[in-house]
């Protein structure tokens, strides 16, 4: 029975030629726009997460309160964190290890070319170095990473090696020397490409070398904390907050510092991007809405044109619900077919966009097919077609056979 309805619906859509095509086109354009924008947005979200170096590790970062969003951590703060803060945190029973980090603006010179780059510090003992390398997720591409005894040496991000045009077409490799704030440093390694603008352009050097150049003393931009038990990261976070409230003499709710877990950091970045994406998808959805109006219009016309036909079907025994189903299925099919083609094109455009993001930002985002998105929009367009068809189908079902036959 249902099969017959589908068969009939297909036949009808086909016989109405250009009008069916145009109705499909409406839904198709809308769905293409929405699907491509959603997949682009998801790609962008991954790209941003990789830019911020938010990885899947289970370390806690502590920063002094201030105005974030205007530079690297710690650049605009009122009361910086200190080594004593880190030591106190390390004495907490739920904490395994802490590391201080500073990020500074360095003037890097090589082959008579000058560029401004971030300089990140590396602590000077084995345990801490291991922790930092885990946090940065750093592997050497050439040479090796810094050891605790590597005074006067630096490890550079991938772009120092890859973008020789920034240095007068002379490649920087391990063994070469560069100037940082007019001091000479030997390059001993290049870090693998991370796809993050900050990490791929960073200069890593030992803490005491950096202190000689920048003089931050015992102050720290960030304290990295390794919890003893990774399952209880939330509790460790609370412990640190309590301790720092005490040390910095502030009440709850008035913290002048921030303790964040990787998930929290990612969530706060994503919430902004989600807002932007929702806004854009809503605008794009307007076109699906207009496409649905097109379906209603087509179906109303179709009911009127087939008034006589409906009369005949009814007089040979079709019930109201049969007529309703026939038109309802026809309009759902319009939505479904338009949606299916739209999803295909939308996904392809999304892929092209992600490829573009990769080229533009130097990231390495995978081209994932999002099945939830695909099935969701397929079901959605089927539903939209169905909803658009309800009123016309009801009109058709209510038709009085006698009047309909009379013309």
């Amino acid at each position: 029975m249902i099969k017959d309805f589908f068969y009939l619906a297909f036949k009808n859509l086909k016989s109405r030629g250009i009008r069916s095509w145009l109705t499909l086109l409406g839904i198709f354009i809308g769905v293409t726009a929405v699907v491509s924008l959603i997949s682009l947005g998801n790609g962008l979200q991954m790209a941003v997460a990789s830019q911020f170096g938010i990885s899947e590790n289970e370390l806690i970062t502590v920063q002094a309160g201030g105005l974030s969003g205007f530079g690297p951590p710690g650049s605009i703060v009122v009361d910086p964190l200190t080594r004593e803060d880190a030591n106190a945190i390390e004495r907490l029973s739920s904490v395994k290890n802490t590391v201080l980090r500073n990020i500074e603006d360095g003037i890097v010179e090589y082959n008579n070319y000058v560029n401004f780059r971030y300089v990140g510090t590396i602590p000077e003992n084995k345990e801490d170095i291991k922790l930092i390398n885990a946090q940065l997720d750093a592997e050497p591409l050439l040479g090796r990473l810094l050891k605790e005894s590597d005074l006067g040496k630096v490890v550079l991000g991938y772009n120092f090696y890859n973008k020789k045009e920034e240095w007068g077409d002379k490649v920087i490799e391990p063994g070469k020397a560069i100037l940082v704030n007019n001091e000479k440093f030997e390059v001993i390694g290049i870090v693998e490409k991370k796809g993050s603008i900050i990490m791929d352009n960073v200069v890593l050097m030992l803490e005491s070398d950096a202190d000689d150049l920048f003089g931050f003393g015992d102050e720290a931009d960030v304290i990295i904390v390794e919890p003893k038990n990774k399952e209880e990261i939330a509790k460790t976070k609370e412990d640190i907050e309590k301790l720092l409230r005490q040390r910095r003499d502030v009440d709850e709710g008035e913290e002048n510092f921030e303790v964040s877990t990787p998930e929290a950091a990612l969530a706060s970045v994503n919430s902004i991007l989600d807002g932007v994406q929702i806004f854009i998808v809503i605008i794009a959805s307007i076109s699906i809405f207009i496409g649905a109006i097109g379906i209603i219009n087509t179906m109303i016309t179709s009911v009127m044109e087939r008034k006589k036909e409906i009369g005949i079907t009814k007089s040979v025994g079709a019930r109201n619900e049969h007529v309703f189903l026939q038109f309802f299925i026809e309009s759902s099919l319009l939505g479904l077919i338009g949606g299916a083609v739209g999803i295909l094109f939308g996904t392809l455009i999304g892929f092209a966009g992600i490829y573009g993001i990769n080229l533009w930002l130097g990231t390495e985002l995978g081209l994932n097919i999002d099945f939830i998105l695909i099935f969701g929009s397929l079901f959605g367009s089927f539903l939209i077609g169905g909803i658009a068809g309800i009123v016309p189908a009801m009109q058709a079902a209510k038709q009085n056979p006698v009047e309909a036959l009379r013309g």
Partner: protein
Amino acid sequence: MLSGESVKYSLKNLKKHKARSFLTIFSILVGIATIFIFVSFGLGLYNYIEELSSSSSADKVLIMPKTAGGFTSNAVTMNDSDINAIERTPRVYEATGMYYGAALVKQNKNQKYTFLISYDPKKDMILESFAVDAIEGRVFKPGDTNKALLGYNYLIPNKIFPKALKLNDNIEVNGENLKIIGFLDEIGNPQDDSQVYITNEQYESMNPDTNSYGQIFARVDIKDINKVVEDIEKSLRRSRDLEKGKEDFTVQSFNELIEAYSSALNIVIGFVLLIALISVIVSTVNTANTMITSVLERYKEIGVLKAVGARNSEIFSIFLFESAFLGFVAGVLGCLLGWTIASIGGLILKNLGWSFLQPYISIYLFAGLILFAVVTGAISGALPARRASKTNIVDALRTE
């Protein structure tokens, strides 16, 4: 060529198929309203930027330390010797430094982090560049000590602090008690309107370690400002003993900076409009569909019209008029709907403190969008109308 009779005939037809005409108009008006909203807000933003780059800022040049990407630098210092070098450059009238920092502002038990900006009251160029003045009290005078000038939002209860601040109140900024001498007029975004301003002397006494300005402003001869920018670069290179290409500072005219913002704005608004245009394309498809149906239904009628003497061009114009009329009605209603939504949106944004994001509504916007709707209606009706005009009389009359 379009007689009153054909107009009447078209309108009667549209009325006969009320549901269809209504749905077609509705689908166009949604798209038109969307575009109206974004264009009006876009124009509002351009106007805001235009105001920023008004005559009071046209003669300003900004000199900033280079950074690796952040907002402030700790690698490059700029101090009074740089100001001297800039002032010695030909056609530079005067130069002054400003400090930037974070401020922890406290009122009783409440606190807030915000931007702290300081300037030299003898050479106020920052307030002049942004054309803001005190709405209550006054701005700094030379010789003011332990005084603070606050942004507009401190005047509003529950915006920054539960209680609004008043003139001559004391406020704690980074642990220092300062007396409020004035509040600035509204700038229109929450960040600027919550800023705290102090004098350079005050900043230096609160931060004794400070050795570098965040930014230097210079007032220069407005004629051939690009040449002045180059000259400032040259004299700074000389005074800082740097080779060309190794500068650790940037020099930019204020208007150049604002142009950079507006070109970023172009991209954003262009992108949003592009997405909104998609909905217009879909409604064009709908209109074409309606017109095709309309032509098919009236196949016989067209035959009769032709048989009694209607010319091809008359048939064509009847159908073209029908679709253009649909576009016109949708354009008018769409603009009205867009106007309503944009005005409500503007009010909401104003209450949230984003008063620089206001729709700008002009008669040209209405006229332009209505014309746009008429033209898209006509375009989508052109092919069906042509088909109608080419109808073969004999075939048409023969059909049942």
